[in-house]
């Protein structure tokens, strides 16, 4: 009996410690990965020593030690093109999502707190935009203001705003009937103050989740636009246009489209993991599901059962301090 309970205590502490270690490892891995992405964005020359526009001697060479991702029809290094191609894609998608987040949150809060007439008009416009396919909006905008990274940012921003606005509006409506927002009204907090002190901070979780998945979608849309020839123009490197260029020779030179395609996949994955990680970081209760990488401790998302029996962990107060004082009050 005693051995059994001792063993249980040991495994319990080990499990707790391993959970802690896993979350630290996750943090380090995430920070490294974000730094890597930033470095690729700012100084791609650090990783690729050959210019993506340099036409080498051997064309259509398979991946080797010299050209780890191979070369294309004009003898350009595919690895270098993948590294340099990250910049337009990431700029467009990050910029577009940032724009959409700002606009969407603003419109959503207006829709959630404004008088009925205004909110109905605003939200119906949002609904109409939501009904148009993202690519169609982008195509219309690019057709009117011309192609290039800036117009892709604008196009993505406009296209993703309605989604943010809808979700934010719904959360604001829910938050407004929550007691702490009502309490703010009772102690005379003005509408603007309530929005900044109580609504915005409590929307962060939803917005982060939305934004991280939107980055994934935006990367896909940005590369699709380039794939269709509406984004970055050849010979400048871009994952979408390179993918398109290599698509025709997939059976003879698989590396041409495979590596830009893999880059897109990895970027979307990183965006989603980063979103989950940020969400656990900013959760005030620290009780939400935690995401971990499987090799580093399991990509496990389990509902903590503690809530079922110990829904709250009260602060251990000095028993002599509080109750006695008011008992005799």
């Amino acid at each position, binding site marked *: 009996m005693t051995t059994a309970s001792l063993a*249980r*205590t040991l495994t*319990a*502490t080990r*499990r*707790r410690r391993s*959970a802690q270690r896993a979350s630290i490892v996750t943090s380090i891995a995430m920070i490294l990965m974000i730094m890597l992405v930033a470095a690729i964005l700012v100084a791609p020359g650090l990783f690729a020593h050959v210019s993506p526009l340099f036409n080498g001697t051997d064309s259509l060479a398979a991946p080797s030690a010299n050209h780890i991702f191979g070369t294309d029809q004009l003898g350009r290094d595919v690895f270098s093109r993948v590294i340099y191609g990250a910049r337009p894609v990431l700029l467009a998608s990050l910029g577009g999502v940032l724009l959409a987040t700002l606009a969407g949150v603003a419109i959503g809060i207006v829709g959630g707190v404004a008088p009925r007439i205004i909110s109905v008009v605003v939200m119906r416009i949002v609904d109409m935009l939501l009904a148009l396919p993202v690519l169609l909006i982008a195509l219309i905008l690019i057709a009117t203001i011309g192609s290039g990274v800036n117009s892709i940012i604008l196009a993505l921003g406009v296209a993703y705003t309605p989604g943010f606005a809808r979700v934010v509006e719904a959360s604001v409506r829910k938050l407004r009937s*929550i*007691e*702490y927002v*009502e*309490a*703010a*009204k*009772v*102690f*005379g*907090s*003005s509408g603007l*103050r309530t929005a900044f*002190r*109580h609504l915005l*901070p*409590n929307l962060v979780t939803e917005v982060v989740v939305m934004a991280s998945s939107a980055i994934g979608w935006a990367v896909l849309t940005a590369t699709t636009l380039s794939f269709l020839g509406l984004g970055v123009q050849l010979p400048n490197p871009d994952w979408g246009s390179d993918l398109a260029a290599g698509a025709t020779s997939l059976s003879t030179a698989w590396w041409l489209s495979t590596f830009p395609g893999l880059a897109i996949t990895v970027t979307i994955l990183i965006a989603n993991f980063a979103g989950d990680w940020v969400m656990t970081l900013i959760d*005030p*209760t620290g*009780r939400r599901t935690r995401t971990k990488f499987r090799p580093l401790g399991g990509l496990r998302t*389990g*509902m*903590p*059962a*503690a809530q*079922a*029996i*110990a*829904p*709250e*962990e*009260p*602060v251990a*107060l*000095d*028993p002599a*301090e*509080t*109750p*006695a*004082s*008011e*008992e*005799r*009050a």
Partner: protein
Amino acid sequence: MSITTTVEETTDDVRGTRTVLSVRDLEVEIDTPNGTVRPVDGVTLSVRAGETLGIVGESGSGKTMTAMSVLQLLPPGGAIVGGSIQFDGRELTTMAASELRRLRGNDIGMVFQDPMTSLNPTRTVGSQLREAYLIHHRGASVGEANARAEEVLSLVRMPRPKERLRDFPHQLSGGMRQRAMIAIALICEPRLLIADEPTTALDVSIQAQILELLDDLKTRLGMGVILVTHDLGVIAGHADRVAVMYGGRVVEEAPTRALFADPRHRYTQALFESMPTMDLDARHALASIPGIPPQLIDLPPMCRFAARCQFATEECRTQDPAVIEVAPGHTHSCFHPRDAGELASDDRDFVVLSDETISRGGAGNTLVSLHGIEKQFRIKNPAAFKPRRVLHAVSGVTLDINEGETLGIVGESGSGKTTVGRLLVGLETPTSGSVVVSGDDVSSLSGAERRKRRGDLQIMFQDSSAALDPRMTVADLIAEPLAAQHIGNNRERREKVLELLDAVGLPRSAAERRAHEFSGGQRQRIAMARALVLRPKIIVADEPVSALDVSIQAQILNLMRSLQVAYSLTYVVISHDLSLLKYMADRIGVMYLGKLVEIGPSAEVYSAPRHPYTAGLIASIPIPDPTREKGLNTTGLSGEIASAIDPPSGCRFRTRCPLATELCAREEPALDLRDGPHAVACHFPLSDESAVDRENARH
């Protein structure tokens, strides 16, 4: 017919009957990120056929886990790690999953707390009943299942059972949903019924009906019943034996009468003393149990209650207490039990509040008055393209609130009491009528002026976890009203926060923590501090303690009363609990379906109610005294509250009133406040003589 005799007969019968369920040394563990929690720690219980075993305890005491582990419905990560559960001689802990499934629903039925979430909203009541039947009767036809479903619905006294089969859960009222839930549990005629807080989500009048139904079914079907509840009143009236749980252990077990007459364990004793009962003298402070229940993680051998027990000694903190049998069937595990016949620790524990320290009555000026306020909500019509329907939440309430008094507002859910509170603090604007605060009609004030005046009227909500912004520290939360009103600089606000933390009995170190780190009672203290920071004249408390455990409730009520003196506050306490209001309030207003039907001094309203509704409410309250509760001729309320969308003509209570005549349907009785301090809106108010008769019947 007196119920007493029937109950005693069954109790006697039970002694001879066989044991349905016996639990021995049961241990349950749940893996959590914070460690292994042991919510059930060596529990031994047994239930005989035709007997109700009550399990009572605070939240976190393991009472629900014990009931759930019988059916092995444990939360993820939970497992039975020791002990045995024998049902009808068969061991459940080692049983195969498929065999267990055959037992669940067939031999062991379960009724959950909230019928709203335990019925499937997308399927009709009939189809859910049929499913429960057909799972265990493979060969049966749908027709047979239907017939059986109808039979069970009429067994649980569902009105017009055949029509109800086609209804969806949302079309039924709360009481009817719980009846449907019980019907599902009973459809296969289980030998054991586990009812986990079956009436906690229901109104007191419906609670009385459901509990009486459970009693009746137990006697008729000869089931064993496990009744899990936190409410000692429910236990007193409806359990044959009681197990008191604390910290995952059964600390005392006894026949109901013996337990209430002679509790031995110090926890049981403290629990009884902290209940606000109807007879409690309002001049006494409530006895409260200091501290909070323990976290059940990695606890050494010790009495789990030792940290909160005033009798605890060294052995309590270092050894597990042994089970001691003091009488046949009466066991406890306490090192320093209460002696048999020892008087309640009245003199030592109850602080008598003298007349200087507590202001009762409050004959001061009128602070706020409501003049014929009405509030209507326009709600969507379920039929498409039809005009919106109007819900009359409050219809013409006139009321004065005097300086220094505590006004209680009581009523069932749907009576409009919460809406009155929200109208008072300005969270809703009245459809018609006016709210007059210190001489000014609120609707005539400008927006900025109104915001400034907001500080005079503050509100405390029921759900303390939703009332505090989870992203703010306690210091920010308490200082936020000052910041919103641009009062003081940072340093002054900080001082004010610390002063208030002292006032509500929280340590100053709490200032830097966040609300989720505190327990329910502690959060309610933070909410109190925030309400106080603007120095309001009136605090509206909407069900301030109904989410808290009995022992914690008493702490908060005592705090509210001491703060009332210190900060010269006027309270409006909104509650469904008449005994709580009788203790807290100077005057009680009784609301029914948006109308104020009776208002008067609290002692008078309780002892001599003039409205039949008030009398019915009082009769429905479960009293934690088995000798009285079981002898009570239930004259509680029948039926359920009518719809506020289409309220009955004339007197709104006439559909449930035993005295209703044609006059009541034709003409609406008015509440005449000039009628003296105890006004009533009834054509046939109860006289004092009839009240005396009723009192005699109760004793």
